């Protein structure tokens, strides 16, 4: 049974991992879009973030998988799952990045400009290294939320850890062991993620000092 569950773990970790890897930088992009001076762009980005953050992940996954083909974009279940989770976590990440950007001391930015740095260079060398560290704990928190929401992809037929456990339960008529085992595995994955993040934060603090 455990071996059988492991294939589900691989799917859960791979899909969530891809969504996180794409969603963190895309979230930053969306946050920058929301801070843009072009009013249309900033309003569109804010609207996207607000709508997607309010949508339940199950509903959103079904919107992507069943709804997009009606607009001419057809995706297989696995890519649809990755796209849906990515678009979802992007919206939440943008909120985290935006908070860090808004909190960023204005004086530093003005000083950077006074030293002749272009806006792009100032962002890359001055702003980004600092907001990245400030956002890390919140980003990791969002990662754990994403992993806990990832069973939603089961509804379009992707066999993730939760669906695998459900299949085993249905064939063995003993639902308790696979569900409990799956629960423990989720716990282990989340704990590993949180411990890794805390270790990274500690190392950053040791190397660069407090923020």
């Amino acid at each position, binding site marked *: 049974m455990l071996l059988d569950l492991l294939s589900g773990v691989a799917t859960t970790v791979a899909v969530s991992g891809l969504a996180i890897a794409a969603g963190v930088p895309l979230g930053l992009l969306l946050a920058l879009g929301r801070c843009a001076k072009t009013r249309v762009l900033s309003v569109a980005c804010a609207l996207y973030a607000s*709508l997607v953050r309010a*949508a*339940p992940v199950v509903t*959103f996954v079904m919107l992507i998988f069943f709804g997009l083909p009606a607009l001419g974009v057809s995706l297989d279940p696995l890519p649809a799952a990755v796209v849906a989770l990515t678009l979802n976590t992007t919206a939440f990440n943008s909120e985290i990045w935006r908070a860090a950007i808004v909190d960023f001391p204005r004086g530093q930015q003005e000083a950077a400009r006074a030293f002749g740095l272009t806006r792009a260079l100032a962002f890359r060398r001055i702003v980004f290294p600092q907001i990245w560290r400030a956002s890390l704990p919140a980003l990791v928190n969002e990662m754990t939320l994403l992993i*806990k929401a990832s*069973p939603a992809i089961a509804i379009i037929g992707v066999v993730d850890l*939760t669906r695998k456990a459900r299949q085993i*339960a249905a064939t063995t008529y003993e639902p*308790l062991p696979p*569900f409990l085992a799956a629960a423990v595995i989720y716990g282990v994955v989340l704990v590993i993620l949180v411990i890794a993040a805390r270790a990274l934060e500690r190392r950053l603090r040791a190397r660069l000092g407090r923020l």
Partner: protein
Amino acid sequence: MRVDVIWNQLPQFAIGLGNTLWLCTVSTVLSLLLGALLMVPLMSRNTALRGAAQALVDAGRCIPFLLLTYLVYFALPTLGVTVDKWSAALITLVAYNTAYMAEILRAGWAHLPAGQTDAAHAFGYTGWKLFRRIIGPQVLIAVGPVIGNQLIQLIKDSAFLSIITVPELTFAANYVQSYYFVPFESFLFATLLYWALCGGVEWLVHRGERYASLVRPSNG
């Protein structure tokens, strides 16, 4: 865009929305009460009891909502407890959110200035009176927005219940889309309704905060 289909199926959406609303309202109230009860072991001086309660809360916060739904709906019957989909839905919503509510209340309580309770003791406040007049109102004001966020999370988690065929909002949207083949319109409309629901919660929290700032002095 087939807006006409959505318009004609509004009763379906209304039924789903209604079920989502009452399920979430009832389970919010129940999980808040149970979460408050969990505070007794969570704030206990007995380390073993406190550790056990904290472990339970932490474990509860690690489990995905859908997995807990499966545990309740499919595994409870094998232990001799038969549940229909409605009781499974309520049990899952309440059990899942109790862990979060307990943690939110505990964090709110832990952030109260320690000297304040001592001062209240010195003024003769003890036991229930201390809680009702000094601790309770402050914790409630402090955690109000966080509980609002949790309520939004709860509303969104309740969409998972469509998988065990509870006829809530997402189930209604899925029903309409599969019957009339309007997937995009149907799920988009459901999303807009969730959006409105979450906006409503935020509005309530905002009102609550304004009320709180009116009834208490601003030095808080």
